[in-house]
């Protein structure tokens, strides 16, 4: 939008003024103070955005409303527009665009202003010195987003976000004194643990101290133990002395006594010899006397022994009968046993008879045939009987199963056919079949009727002639021709192959004709398909002249069909249901054919099912009848077999029974009884023979008795008599031998006694010689001498025993030694006292040792507790975890700082390289405005701060600049923004109201050049000034200022 002309009817100081403006370039309006320059700027703003309240009132203390009106003539995109705004109470003025009243939101107006808000226009496009100087005017949202680092692009935002996150994280880690972060909290935790570790006992020193104490206590205990050992040693010594003193004293006494005894040297051997001689003498004398007496006694005894010669005479008979006697005794016992009671076998027989059924005796048993042949016959009969019985049982079982099945099927059949008259089933089937046929016919007739009705209707409608058929596409015919060609080729090739077998070598001679035939067939098929398709898809023509005839035929057919339908329907209605078929037929009467036909078919199927079940039941019945006949046959066979079996039992002698096992058990018993009976019979014959033998034996013994003992001797017990005779006979030899031996012994004894007399004499002589040699007259003297010697020996033995006792005592204490002197000085009472004292000391030391050991145990327990104590380890464990966490967090912290540092570098680079275009452009303008004193305007990321780099590269905040430079910065920024807005389609004139008043001469000239450069770029600039030199400066650059009226008058004057 460019302003061509201002036409002010009334606005402020201006009335009926028209001011033209250059569309391109700068327009400089010079006017003194109060010339109305600022009013013109407000007018432009007022027409575009509405008048302000102060514009529509008069000045002074009591403002009165003033109507403002004026027009802006504009050019926008080659079109001229006329914007007129007239004051309207309660509003900011009535706006007209090209004579059309519009509101402030009119699209045309928005298009003209480029959507720039009033605030934006006021802060950027139409500014006075006040707006220029105020930094706040750059903080408005519309403005700041083009200036500050918020708009350093997505990367800048990412960096900004990253640095914020790093800062937050660092804050979380570190925190501050009042609210410590994770790291500081961990440090506090660590301090606490360290303090606890310090407070904890030093286990090492404590352990060492305890070890020392234990060592000391153990040393003390060892010393006491040594003293205790010494005491024990002393005690043992005293006790040893006490024990040894008594035997020692005894030994000494015995030794004294021994010394007192005379030590005669008696020849002990001589004395022993004398004793031996006397003993031998006495012994021989005694022996002689006893021999003589023995001889006499033997002689007497020999005379007393008598003999029986008659026994020796019958010695052979006695020995023979004696040998026979034992056998006879056995026979007698056998006979006696049989006589005394029943034979064991007889008892067995009776037992067996008792077990057998019926009355059994020996006679019946003897009659019974238990031969193997008889048993075999019986077994055969039994086997036959059992097989027949089993067969019958199987048949019966099968019969029962069939009966059960029949009952089940019969029940099912009865259930399914409960409402049917079974006799009427065939008739019902016929009825249903007939009905089904009728229904199907009815349906076909109805179809036909419907079809004909449609045909008739068509025939009625289609009175004009027309060809019916579809136009077929080209490719259809092409394909059809390809089929024809292919079919023809296949047919030809097949025909040729079939007759000449060209490919015989490839496919085989025998199969060539088959291949040919297949090809021919495929060709025929293809041709046929083509012909059919052609016939089907070809156009058809209808002849018009036959329609009347066809209509008549159709009507006739319709009439005929109608009659048929009525006939069938009537027949259907009039048909009476059969008995028992109601259930099947009743429901189909009122139904349509579509419903009724499936139902009738289902009924027919049901009927078939009932009939099949009936047939199955009947089949089962027939089968049962056959089985009954078979069962009767089996029963007859069983009867025959049973009769034969019972006959066999009867023949065998057993009771009749059907239990075969029982019968065979009885049979077994009978066999056993029979065996016993046979044995018994054999033993009875033997007994008679034995009795005869016994009688003969008795007679022989009785004859022998008479021969030995004399006539009239009665033998009471034949065997004992024989034993007696045998005993006497055996004794008789012995007696004879004994008598002769006695006589001989008597003689020997007498001879021995005679020999002893000489020996006795010799011994007496030797004794006398010996006494003479000992110098004693009698034996008593020798005995006295020997008694003295014995006493000495006794004393020596006692001394030996005492010494052994002493030795034993000494061996009990091998470590102790007692001197003779100690024993001599030994005082029993003193020793007792010493012993008591030592015991007391020992008890005292024991108590001390006990205490020491308790202390040591306690200390060792403490030592073990310390060794097992994990508290310090636990604290160190905690400490290590905290230290690890601190180091980890420290590492994180350092990495955050490092990352932040690098991101800071990135940020600097981006701030340096990726400042918004607005700031870049502004930097160029500023450089020009300040003659390159200040070269760059930039803003740090995320901060609403404007920094300016001077020619030394130093960055200064805008607040630190001089007011003139600051105004140049702001002017540069606005010009840059205007340029930026222009690129986005927001083309509005730049209206500057004396914004260069604080510029020095050089920078004013620079500003003029800069503005002209901007104007040359196509920006419309309206510069209001009250400074003549500025107007002249523009004038020097070929820009003729517009001299506002008053000024013009001055110039003119």
């Amino acid at each position, binding site marked *: 939008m460019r302003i061509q002309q201002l036409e002010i009817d009334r606005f402020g100081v201006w009335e009926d003024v028209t001011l033209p403006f250059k569309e391109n370039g700068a327009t400089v309006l010079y006017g003194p103070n109060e010339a109305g320059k600022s009013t013109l700027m407000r007018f432009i703003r007022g027409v575009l955005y509405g008048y302000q309240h102060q514009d529509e009132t008069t000045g002074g203390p009591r403002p009165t409303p003033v109507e403002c009106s004026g027009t802006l003539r504009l050019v926008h995109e080659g079109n001229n527009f006329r914007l007129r705004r007239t004051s309207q109470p309660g509003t900011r003025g009535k706006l007209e665009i090209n004579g059309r009243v519009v509101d402030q939101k009119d699209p045309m107006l928005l298009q003209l202003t480029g959507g720039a808000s009033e605030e934006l226009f006021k802060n950027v496009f139409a500014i006075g010195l006040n707006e220029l100087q105020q930094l706040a005017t750059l903080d408005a949202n519309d403005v700041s987003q083009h200036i500050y680092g918020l708009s350093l692009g997505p*990367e800048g935002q990412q960096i900004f976000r*990253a640095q914020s996150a790093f800062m937050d994280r660092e804050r979380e880690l570190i925190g501050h004194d009042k609210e410590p972060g994770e790291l500081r909290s961990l440090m506090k935790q660590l301090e606490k643990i360290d303090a606890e570790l310090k407070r904890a006992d030093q286990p090492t020193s404590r352990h060492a101290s305890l070890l020392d104490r234990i060592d000391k206590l153990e040393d003390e205990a060892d010393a006491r133990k040594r003293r205790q050992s010494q005491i024990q040693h002393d005690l043992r010594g005293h006790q040893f002395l006490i024990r040894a003193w008594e035997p020692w004293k005894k030994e000494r006494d015995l030794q004294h006594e021994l010394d007192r005894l005379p030590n005669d040297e008696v020849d002990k051997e001589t004395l022993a010899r004398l004793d031996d001689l006397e003993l031998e003498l006495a012994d021989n004398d005694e022996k002689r006397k006893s021999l003589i007496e023995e001889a006499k006694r033997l002689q007497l005894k020999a005379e007393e022994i008598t003999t029986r010669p008659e026994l020796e005479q019958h010695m052979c008979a006695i020995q023979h009968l004696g040998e026979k006697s034992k056998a006879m005794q056995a026979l007698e016992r056998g006979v006696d046993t049989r006589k005394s009671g029943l034979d064991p076998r007889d008892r067995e027989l009776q037992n067996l008879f008792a077990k057998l059924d019926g009355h059994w005796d020996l006679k019946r048993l003897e009659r019974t045939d238990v031969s193997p042949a008889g048993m075999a016959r019986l077994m055969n009969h039994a086997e036959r009987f059992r097989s027949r019985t089993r067969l019958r049982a199987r048949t019966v079982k099968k019969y029962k199963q069939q009966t059960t099945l029949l009952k089940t099927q019969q029940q099912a059949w009865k259930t399914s056919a409960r409402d049917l008259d079974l006799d009427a089933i065939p008739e019902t089937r016929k009825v249903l079949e007939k009905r089904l046929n009728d229904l199907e016919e009815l349906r076909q007739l109805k179809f036909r009727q419907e079809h004909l009705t449609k045909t008739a209707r068509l025939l009625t409608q289609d009175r004009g002639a027309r060809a019916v058929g579809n136009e077929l596409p080209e490719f259809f015919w092409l394909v059809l021709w390809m089929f024809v060609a292919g079919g023809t080729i296949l047919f030809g090739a097949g025909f040729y192959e079939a007759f000449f077998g060209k490919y015989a070598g490839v496919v085989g001679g025998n199969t060539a004709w088959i291949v040919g035939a297949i090809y021919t067939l495929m060709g025929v098929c293809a041709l046929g398909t083509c012909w059919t398709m052609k016939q089907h898809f070809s156009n058809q023509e209808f002849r018009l002249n036959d329609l009347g005839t066809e209509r008549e035929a159709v009507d006739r057919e319709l009439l005929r069909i109608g009659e048929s339908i009525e006939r069938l329907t009537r027949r259907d209605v009039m048909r009476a249901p059969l008995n028992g078929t109601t259930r099947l037929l009743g429901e189909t009467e009122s139904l349509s054919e579509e419903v009724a036909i499936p139902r009738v078919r289902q009924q027919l199927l049901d009927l078939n099912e009932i009939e099949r079940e009936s047939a199955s039941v009947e089949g089962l019945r027939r089968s049962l009848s056959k089985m009954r006949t078979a069962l009767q046959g089996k029963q007859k066979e069983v009867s025959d077999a049973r009769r034969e079996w019972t006959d066999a039992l009867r023949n065998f002698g057993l009771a009749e029974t059907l239990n075969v096992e029982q019968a065979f058990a009885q049979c077994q018993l009978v066999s056993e009884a029979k065996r016993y009976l046979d044995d018994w019979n054999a033993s009875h014959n033997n007994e008679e023979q034995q009795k005869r033998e016994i009688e003969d034996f008795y007679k022989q013994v009785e004859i022998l008795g008479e021969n030995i003992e004399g006539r009239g001797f009665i033998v009471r017990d034949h065997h004992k008599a024989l034993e007696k005779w045998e005993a006497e006979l055996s004794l008789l030899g012995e007696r004879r031998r004994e008598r002769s031996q006695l006589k001989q012994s008597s003689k020997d004894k007498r001879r021995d006694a005679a020999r002893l007399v000489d020996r006795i004499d010799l011994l007496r002589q030797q004794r006398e010689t010996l006494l003479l040699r000992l110098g004693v007259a009698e034996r008593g003297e020798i005995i006295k001498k020997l008694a003295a010697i014995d006493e000495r020996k006794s004393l020596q033995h006692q001394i030996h025993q005492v010494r052994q006792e002493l030795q034993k005592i000494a061996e009990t204490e091998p470590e102790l030694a007692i001197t003779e002197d100690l024993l001599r000085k030994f005082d029993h009472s003193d020793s007792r006292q010493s012993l008591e004292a030592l015991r007391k000391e020992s008890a005292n030391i024991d108590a001390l040792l006990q205490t020491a050991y308790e202390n040591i145990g306690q200390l060792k327990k403490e030592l073990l507790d310390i060794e097992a104590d994990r508290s310090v380890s636990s604290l160190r464990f905690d400490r290590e975890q905290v230290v690890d966490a601190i*180091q*980890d967090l420290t590492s994180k912290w350092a990495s955050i700082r*490092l990352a932040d540092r690098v991101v800071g570098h990135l940020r600097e680079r981006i701030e340096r390289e990726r400042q918004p275009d607005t700031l870049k452009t502004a930097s160029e303008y500023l450089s020009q405005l300040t003659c390159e004193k200040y070269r760059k305007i930039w803003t740090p990321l995320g901060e609403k701060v404007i920094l300016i780099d001077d020619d030394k590269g130093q960055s200064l905040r805008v607040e630190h600049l001089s007011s003139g430079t600051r105004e140049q910065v702001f002017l540069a920024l606005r010009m840059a923004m205007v340029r930026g807005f222009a690129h986005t389609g927001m083309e509005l004139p730049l209206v500057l109201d004396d914004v260069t008043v604080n510029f020095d001469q050089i920078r004013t000239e620079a500003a003029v050049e800069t503005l002209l450069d901007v104007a040359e770029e196509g920006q419309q600039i309206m510069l209001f000034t009250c400074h003549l030199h500025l107007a002249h400066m523009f004038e020097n650059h070929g820009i003729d200022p517009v001299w506002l009226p008053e000024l013009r008058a001055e110039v003119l004057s």
Partner: protein
Amino acid sequence: MSRDSFRFVHATSLCLDEPLVGTGPLNNSARELAEQSTLSAWEGIVSTAIDAQAEFVLLTGNCFDTRTESLRARVALEKGFETLESQGISVFIAPGNLDPLSAWKRNLTLSANVTILADEEQEPIAVLKDGRVIASVFVIAMPESDETRWSASGPVIMNGHQASYRIGIVPAGTPVRWEHDRPVALDQPGVSHAALTLVQSAIEKQVEYIALGEGNPGTYKYPGGIANDPGPSQSLSKKVTGCCGCSVIDVSSNGETRIDRIAVSAIRWEETGIAVDGHTNWEDLVERMALVVMELEPDNDEKLWILNWKITGAGKVFDALGEYAKRNELWELLEAELNGESAIQRVHRLERVTRIQIDPEESERAIGLIHDFNMILLESKDSLIASVKQEMLELDWVQQANAAVIREGIQQTPPKELIRRSQALAAGWLN
């Protein structure tokens, strides 16, 4: 050459009674387990030596931290040595940087079966079996190995000695690390390269077994021998993951060395990265995590797993995991999924690499910002890091006495870690 076969146990970095780092909150039982873990691992090593009927136990440094002066560590060591002595098992110890010789002499009462190898100049110790020498043990290099301090005789490895089986020790803290089966010197200011020279010499002289003590598990073969680091008996942090324990070394009669790793640690660390995206739902995440856990093979001695889940990506699930309650919910779901899967207690920790989703249109226009960030960071990383650290250290509250840990943290945080974290942060906000 035929010689006696024998077996020994090699363990290192016992760090007895040293606390685990970075476990996070633990329940009472887990806490007790954590506090006892290093000691129980040492007991496990002693049991292993006894069960394996080892001839001797080799401890290659950092059995304890002398700064801690832990009584429990001392008592545990003494008891362990006594137990080994009762079984006739010798112990050879090479002090590391945390448990110097002076600390061993000052603090511990050692039983007769324990031999401490002072430095690289000490004569090799002959190991006897049935009166015959089966091996010799000596120190190759020490944390403080320095040519200027060597006597006229010089280190043992330089002189060379013959034995049926030579075991050289490079204890914990020695400034040598292994890269691609080769030793390299730790490139730190003021660190002598003498240790590296000595280790290289040991390799050249084909020392049969080089016992490494740094606690970085690994086995490195070289012509004529093998170097082995069994790793810590109990990992103290997530820096060493997986099973931890000791090595049982079998030396056969023909001189072949076979190494079996025996796990004795009660607590196992695992770190697993899982990437999620906008399509990932809770079920998917839980299933993937459960699969990871199921694929871990538990060892008999292990009682607690500390599982560090590193979740990267974006999406609703990822965002939700920022909430404590949601994390707990995730652990509950995961444990429900793992119901019946071994009797080992599990503790889950989650590390989330934050990414902020921004408007796609903005994202499109912001391409290159992260690139610029990385460029600036990598171009002047040293100066940036130095200035940031300096700036932090100069803060008043950081200079206070109670902030020593923070100062230490600032100074000790590796530049790589700082750069990685900074890049992650930037990726979250600038990508």
